[in-house]
């Protein structure tokens, strides 16, 4: 029974959002605000249940249960003490909400930005640029004319696209020819991406119509 009520709520919310297609209206606005409000609450739940509880409180649990809050401090090992560094940075992040100490949040942000930059450099270099360059070093004659042709196209497309984005020199002469070939391939690629994007969007609609037809409307017939 509860399930049926909630299927009706789900259908109501779905139709409320679809009503936007006719024009902006209060039903849509209500649904939109429910969505934003609940998403905001979700982030707090995630922060607590997947970060604070297991990563920050977890390591202290055992000592706390054994010795209580006042007694646990004397029994901390190196593992526990060292955790105070990220705890301090996390508190710094929260200090953003209090204007006089807001500047301290920069320490935390500096740490996350530095880490993201370091991770980005290593990942891109080791995981994309080097292996993808290696994969482009294809044999241009393989014995099979079709494979050879395809390999040649892959090599030309990769190089020409790269040349197209090479802005340090004016696109004239050989570079000009190459960059024009580049834009041709880029257009083909964007066309393919557009085709796939259409496919994706339509799939989402199929999903919603499927819900309305086979979960909501079919509940009338049970």
């Amino acid at each position, binding site marked *: 029974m509860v399930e049926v009520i*909630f*299927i009706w709520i*789900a259908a109501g*919310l779905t139709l409320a959002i679809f009503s*936007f297609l006719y024009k902006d209206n209060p039903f849509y606005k*209500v649904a939109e*605000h*429910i969505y934003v*409000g*609940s998403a905001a*609450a*979700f*982030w707090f*739940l995630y*922060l*607590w*249940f*997947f*970060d*604070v509880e297991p*990563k920050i409180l977890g390591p202290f649990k055992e000592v706390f249960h054994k010795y209580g809050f006042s007694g646990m401090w004397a029994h901390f090992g190196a593992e526990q003490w060292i955790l105070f560094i*990220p705890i301090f940075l*996390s508190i710094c992040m*929260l200090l953003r*909400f209090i204007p006089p100490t807001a*500047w301290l949040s*920069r*320490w935390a*942000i*500096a*740490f996350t930005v*530095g*880490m993201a*930059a*370091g991770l*980005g*450099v*290593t990942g891109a*270099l*080791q995981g*994309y*640029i080097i292996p993808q*360059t290696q994969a482009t070093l294809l044999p241009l004659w393989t014995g099979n004319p079709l494979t050879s042709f395809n390999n040649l196209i*892959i*090599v030309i497309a*990769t190089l020409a*696209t790269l040349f197209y*984005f090479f802005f340090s020199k004016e696109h004239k002469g050989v570079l000009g020819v190459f960059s024009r070939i580049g834009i041709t*391939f880029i*257009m083909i*690629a*964007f066309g*393919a991406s557009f*085709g*796939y994007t259409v496919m994706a*969007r*339509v799939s*989402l*609609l199929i999903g*919603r119509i499927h819900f309305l037809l086979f979960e909501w409307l079919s509940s009338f017939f049970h």
Partner: protein
Amino acid sequence: MKKEVPLIITFISGFLLIVALFIPHEPFGSLQERFNDWYIIVSGFTLILGVDSLLLYHWRKIKTKDKDAPYSIILIITFITVLLWGIYSGVKHGNPFAPASTFLRYFYTYMFVPLQATMFALLAFFIASAAYRAFRARGLNATLLLVSAGLVMLGRVPKGEIVVPFFIAITLILIAIIFVLEAVARVSLYERLLYFALALISLIAIIPLSILLREYLPALADWIMNVPQLGAKRGLFIGIWLGAIAMAIRIILGIERTYLK
């Protein structure tokens, strides 16, 4: 102090990871893991950045009795209800998303999911309307984009090859009409003949093109995806990642400081 400390923190954390890639031995290896662990803890707190300004924005709307204040009240009530419901289910089952929790079974499944999914399903309508309105064969590049999109869209769905001859016929007949109109408008006999010939070629081309695509459209879509598309994307992304690396190094060295503002 306010500026130097963050710059030093950024430099140390970023530089350490790069060093650890090239020298994965001690102490860099375990230091990297330690830093990663801290990053996992601290970056969780970035999740809630922005939520405060969202709530504050709506709180102000309620206080100033804005005409949209009723919606803001709904947003804040939803926020509090969801938070409390989540905490209740979380305490009861160990996690709000445990299979037995009412939070997952009812709120998430029948309210949050339909809202988010439908919000994005609207895009199907918008993309259809936008494609009709804006997708014009204005020049060589735009035409190329259109043709590639059309071939992939029809080549990747079942039975697309059955309809493709119709589209080819319509397109080529239109091109032929344009050529004929062009020919009529010309004065010199030579140009007229040329345009008539082009119109004729367009009409004749319908038959072989239709037969070929009827047979090989899925294979052609495969080829587009696996050869020219792939090459261009690879070039594009090598460029993008090179740019990202340059940016990351600027950040690590403290040349780029906009994040401190």
